[in-house]
């Protein structure tokens, strides 16, 4: 990617000694996705050392893919299609690559984001230009193709995780998800439990179902659940109306048809009824009358069809350009697209103003002015409106998502098979594409985890996650609380978890909250899983020791205090958790605790308040007792407020977000 390495401070990591020097060259990142386009320069093995000795993976042969497509960067490539073919029929090899080759682009993008090699002068048609590189540019990539034209099937996903573990991946990156299910029924939870047992760090996308609450996927506590946020980069495209007013939008359009002069402006949905009205406002295929839109800039509302598809519909109807307006669901968040016609995406407020102008003016006109790439945008990062939100409905005692990372308008490598819009009628072929999603934020964290694994090979997956979470930040580049693009207001831990990942600090966190595989099994005991269900995950008979008072006792780097209110009760509710910190810093360090919490609703006591670590790897335990007021809550309705707990030795701030829920 361009910009995000700098935005994350990774440019400085390489010079950090000894932590940053390794750059993850012994680490293999397994990416479960749509495959890989091996010819991309992002997978060049120039100046790469020998493949790590522990690696047992292979490069599988299939349609347009052979063993020579792997190298010292792309060390493995496999495909898993038996479940897919059993469900939908044999793959038509003239239409779909039955091999690790990626025709979609998504898998190439995510793999390159995690661990792509540096590529100079990368851009999408001139946008986002710079040196593109993965977060761990020395780490190795193993591509496991599990997603096909018809979807990603659980039997294939489980097979890929199983094989990835056997191959020797150190990090697994999964930018996909499904609905919510118990851990023993969910292929990703099941498989990644086994991966975690073998020391594999697992990063998964949180989902794009935001800003609705309770919209997360991939919430198992052994998974790092990653939400998405913006970079300090934008692609402005201004809309100038005939009345002289200018409005800001974004676009990745690049072409000859730049609209220098005003052309007529039309909103096909102008005559829609207030109850939903005509689909013309959505610019769905076949709904635009060429007589009405030819030669005009057409205003289309988001919804139902992909954003870029609307541009293609307008183009087919003879439109000169498009203004794509957000609706209530997207608020003011602007996602840029590489449209086939001059187009700009605008927020709901701007969209409403433009529609009002069209409806109130006899001959409305406008033009679109493309300004290219702008850096240093403030505020940033901002939580993406689409990023899925907590609380965690499966286990409210585990606060999710875990953290956020860049996932809006991310440039990375692309397939040579299809154009940047993914539309069949897009003839363009690009080496890099700019796309958005928690799919893009997940591999950022996977790559950073690879860096941490390279720097600290002895750290467990839980220690790596703890380092990433306890060093995450919650203030943007204007020193204000991270904003939510969906509301324009401050966001909270149900939106960003511990905060935005900070790789430099994560390399040297001071203390970590470590968790063993047996701890996770005790967690399963605490959520009352049956012996059979536990066996499915643990792969062995296990007699619960019931060491946890509640699931919240899992040694998680964030804290979720759940006050279970009994009807008509007026007495306070006490929740007590134990946590254990491991010193991964220097000997002889003393940490003091500070707690921020909502004084009106909760009181909090931490014991002890000072922890002294005489030696590295020494462990110290503390308890935290929350006493919550018995709030008059409505049954079934969750009331939540937030705080934080920080252990500090003056150098390291080991911070845990706290959610309080009634």
């Amino acid at each position, binding site marked *: 990617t361009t910009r995000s390495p700098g935005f994350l401070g990774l440019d400085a990591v390489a010079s950090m000694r000894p932590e940053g020097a390794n750059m993850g060259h012994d680490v293999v990142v397994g990416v479960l996705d749509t495959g890989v386009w091996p010819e991309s320069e992002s997978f060049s093995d120039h100046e790469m050392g020998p493949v790590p000795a522990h690696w047992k993976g292979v490069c599988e042969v299939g349609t347009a893919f052979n063993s020579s497509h792997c190298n010292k960067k792309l060390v493995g490539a496999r495909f898993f299609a038996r*479940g897919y073919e*059993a469900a939908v029929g044999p793959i038509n090899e003239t239409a779909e690559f039955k091999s690790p080759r990626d025709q979609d682009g998504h898998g190439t993008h995510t793999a390159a984001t995690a661990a792509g090699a540096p590529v100079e002068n990368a851009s999408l048609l001139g946008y986002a230009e710079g040196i593109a590189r993965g977060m761990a540019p020395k780490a190795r990539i193993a591509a496991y193709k599990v997603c096909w034209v018809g979807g990603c099937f659980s039997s294939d996903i489980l097979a890929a995780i199983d094989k990835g573990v056997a191959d020797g991946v150190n990090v697994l990156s999964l930018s996909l998800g*499904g609905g919510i299910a118990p851990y023993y029924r969910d292929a990703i939870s099941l498989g990644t439990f086994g991966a975690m*047992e073998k020391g594999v760090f697992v990063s998964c996308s949180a989902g794009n179902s935001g800003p609705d609450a309770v919209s997360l996927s991939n919430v198992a506590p052994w998974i790092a659940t990653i939400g998405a946020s913006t970079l300090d980069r934008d692609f402005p495209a201004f809309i100038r109306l005939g009345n002289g007013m200018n409005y800001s939008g974004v676009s990745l359009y690049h072409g000859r048809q730049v609209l220098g002069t005003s052309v007529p402006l039309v909103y096909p949905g102008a005559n829609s009824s207030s109850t939903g009205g005509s689909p013309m406002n959505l610019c769905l295929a076949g709904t635009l009358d060429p007589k009405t839109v030819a030669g005009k800039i057409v205003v289309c509302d988001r919804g139902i069809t992909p954003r870029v598809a609307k541009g293609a519909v307008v183009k087919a109807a003879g439109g000169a350009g498009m203004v794509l307006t957000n609706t209530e669901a997207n608020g003011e968040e602007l996602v840029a697209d590489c449209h086939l016609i001059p187009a700009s995406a605008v927020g709901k407020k701007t969209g409403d103003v433009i529609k009002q102008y069209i409806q109130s003016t006899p001959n409305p006109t406008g033009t679109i002015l493309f300004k290219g790439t702008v850096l240093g945008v403030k505020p940033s990062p901002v939580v993406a409106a689409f990023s899925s939100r907590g609380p965690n409905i499966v286990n409210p005692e585990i606060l999710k998502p875990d953290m956020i990372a860049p996932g809006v308008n991310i440039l990375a490598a692309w397939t040579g098979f299809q154009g940047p819009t993914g539309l069949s009628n897009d003839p363009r072929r690009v080496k890099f594409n700019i796309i958005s999603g928690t799919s893009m934020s*997940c591999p950022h964290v996977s790559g950073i985890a690879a860096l941490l694994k390279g720097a600290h090979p002895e750290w467990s997956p839980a220690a790596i996650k703890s380092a990433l979470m306890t060093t995450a930040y919650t203030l943007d580049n204007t020193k204000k609380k991270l904003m939510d693009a969906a509301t324009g207001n401050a966001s909270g831990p149900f939106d960003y978890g511990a905060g935005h990942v900070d790789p430099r600090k994560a390399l040297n966190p001071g203390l970590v909250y470590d968790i063993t595989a047996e701890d996770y099994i005790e967690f399963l005991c605490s959520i009352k899983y049956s012996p059979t269900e536990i066996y499915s995950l643990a792969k062995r008979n296990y007699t619960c020791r019931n060491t946890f008072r509640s699931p919240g006792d899992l040694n998680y780097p964030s804290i979720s205090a759940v006050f279970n209110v009994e009807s008509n009760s007026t007495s306070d509710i006490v929740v007590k958790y134990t946590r254990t910190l491991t010193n991964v810093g220097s000997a002889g360090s003393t940490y003091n605790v500070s707690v921020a919490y909502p004084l009106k609703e909760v009181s909090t006591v931490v014991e002890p308040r000072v922890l002294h670590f005489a030696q590295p790897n020494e462990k110290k335990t503390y308890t935290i007792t929350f006493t919550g007021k018995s709030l008059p809550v409505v049954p079934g309705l969750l009331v939540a407020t937030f705080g934080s707990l920080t252990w500090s030795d003056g150098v390291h701030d080991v911070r845990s977000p706290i959610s309080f829920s009634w």
Partner: protein
Amino acid sequence: SEGETKTYIVHVAKSQMPASFMSHEHWYTSAVESVMGEEKEASILYDYADAFHGFATRLNAAQAEALEKQEGILGIYPETVYELH
């Protein structure tokens, strides 16, 4: 419908493999064929051995129910489809 064949992920307790089987693959195939009646050829799509213990196979609902009752079978769950984020 009852007769519709779907992919199921079968969770097994590997340590409970009957001694009469030489390998887990034989056990899985035999277990599936024992519930298939006339259609004797088992379709084992995957044999999971490292991160997870079990296999994926094609069954109808009645066959899945019968297989779940066999010793060493911990659970059987139908295939689900995930999506890219």
